[in-house]
């Protein structure tokens, strides 16, 4: 059985701190699994996502993402790894407002050397497929990102995360600013795409009501030994 994420005795300390922010003795995520990761503010969620994406490097221990030891890679290799294999969805989606929806979706391709080397038609094919699947019309794709509605921004953000056909998607509280209707639609859309492409998903959120839709639910207080355990009610999902 292959693991998309495999952590053992991981410790991370910010350069300005003396004590570690994150210590995870053991955590594994199987390939194709959709993980719901819950945690309070300051529990180390963002630090963990930075480690998974290779933006930060663990101070101690082992971290393997998609079978790659990120600590052994150079900074440039990690950037390339991120461009090639990872998709990131932000809270509020963080589309670049001065670009069109299409430019936002294809932005990551500029940094993906593999995508550059592959034929243009392949990228275009993937772009067309995502556009159709996510209901993004040509008219909408040509619009400035700043003019899109929240629902449209959601879909563009998902398309941007999926354009390079990533093997791991990291979603950092993408539904925190959405109302219930938009939130449910977004979750459905994202999980459907992950199922269809067998993509591993690490989804971070405060919203416990979403947990049931995911194949694995975990709490940062269980992963990170530094964080104090949450009250018993909050552990219910596990």
């Amino acid at each position, binding site marked *: 059985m292959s693991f998309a994420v495999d952590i053992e005795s991981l410790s991370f300390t910010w*350069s300005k701190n003396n004590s570690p922010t994150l210590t995870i003795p053991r955590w594994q995520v199987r390939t194709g699994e959709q993980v719901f990761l819950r945690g309070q503010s300051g529990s180390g969620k*963002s*630090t963990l*996502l*930075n480690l998974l*994406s290779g*933006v*930060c490097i663990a101070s101690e221990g082992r971290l393997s993402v998609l079978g790659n030891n990120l600590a052994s890679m150079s*900074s*440039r290799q990690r*950037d*390339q790894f*991120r*461009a*090639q294999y*990872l998709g*990131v969805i*932000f*809270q*509020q989606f*963080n589309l*670049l407002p001065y670009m069109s929806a299409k430019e936002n979706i294809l*932005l*990551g391709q500029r*940094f*993906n050397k593999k995508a550059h080397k592959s034929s243009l038609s392949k990228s275009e094919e993937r772009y067309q497929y995502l556009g159709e699947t996510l209901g993004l019309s040509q008219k909408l794709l040509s619009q400035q990102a700043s003019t899109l509605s929240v629902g449209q921004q959601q879909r563009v953000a998902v398309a*941007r995360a999926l354009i390079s056909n990533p093997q791991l998607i*990291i979603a*950092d509280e993408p539904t925190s600013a959405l109302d219930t209707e938009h939130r449910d639609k977004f979750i459905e859309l994202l999980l459907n795409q992950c199922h269809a492409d067998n993509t591993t998903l690490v989804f971070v959120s405060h919203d416990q009501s979403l947990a049931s839709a995911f194949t694995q639910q975990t709490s940062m207080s269980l992963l990170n030994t530094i964080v104090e355990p949450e009250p018993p009610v909050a552990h219910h999902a596990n």
Partner: protein
Amino acid sequence: MAGLTIFSIAVSMFVLFSVEHLRNEVRANFERAVSGVDIIAGARTSQLNLLLYSVFHIGNPSSNVSWQTYQQLSQNKAVKWAIPISLGDSHEGFPVVGTTKAFFNHFKYADQHAIQFKHGGTFDGLQEMVIGSEVAKALEYPLGHQVVLAHGTGKVSFTKHKQFPFQVVGILTATGTPVDQSVYVPVTAIDAMHTGMTTSTLRQHISKERTVAGEHEHEFTQHAQHIEHSHQASSEQERSIDEKQAHPNDSVHFEDSENTGYANGPALSAIFLGLNNKISTLQIQRAINTDQEAPLSAILPGVALAQLWSIMAGVETSLSLVSVLILLAAMLGMLTMLLASMHERQREIAVLRALGANASVIVLMMECEALFLAFSGCILGYMMTNIGIALFADLIQSQFGLVINPLPYSDAIIGYTLLGLGLSALLALGPALSAYKSALNSGLSVR
């Protein structure tokens, strides 16, 4: 905010370009004002003062030169031609220059360009005048227009020579020199005007004076004669053309009064000399400067201009320095803008990092933005300078006599543009490195 930054850089570049261009144009204007004149002689004064009042009509002579001195100089064998210049009157604020026809024949501007007439021709009668192109443009005088001159060089004068009116007989083509802003009348008319003569009294006076003969050989002539041995024939021939042109005219002819030397002749402010042989220029200059009988200063226009620029060099450097400091201030404004926008950029940087952009891309992005702002500012500044020139060139020419041409894309302008771009790239390194550091430290967690 970016627009404001571009505008502030543009204003700085406008100042920088304008100062540089004005500096070059002023120099070009001064240098083109006189050409082909080997020596300027005038009453004892500094060479700068003599140059400024005689050619540029700035300032006043300390004393006058006698008509006899002019005659002796013009008859010197080394001298090919001599132009008397008499200043001190004005018309509607434009300086009046008393001279002879030799001025129109021999005076050159820019690169040996001769003065040409747009309308009419040179004065033949004593009460005829020729006006420069700017005078004609400003006062809209047609040929034949009657004009009364005013005493003194100010714009406002309470003393007008109403008894001695002039008629416009010639309008000069534009030269881009002080000639354009001057009024030219026969030199003898200046004297006649000031001694209160009318046309009829002057005619009687000339008739009487013609009976007086004899000229006194001046010591200077003896001193200078041995200097020049060549070109004698040609110089005499040219002088005869200048001085012996007779014209049928029922009014008083100005050569009549000039050649007969009525009274003591008109008092002069300066004398322009052209020599037969350029090699003898320094010897003639020394001879004039050391002449005990007629204490004069003789200057070489080129040398005097060089002295002027050496004096101006400090001012020019200061102006350039101030301009560069203004540019630096604008660049610091850009730096502040970039730093202030860093907080807003955290989100953008996080997105780019998440998509696989490495930190050097972030630095490059910041540098490109700074260069774009600076380059846009330079282009806008260049356009503003040319628009300013188009709007104010005529006003500057009429007020200061300076011809300001459109700003060319010269090496200096390219140099200042590169300086602006270099400064912006250098100063943007701070925010760029800050963005780099932020990209490394804040990761993907920006809210």
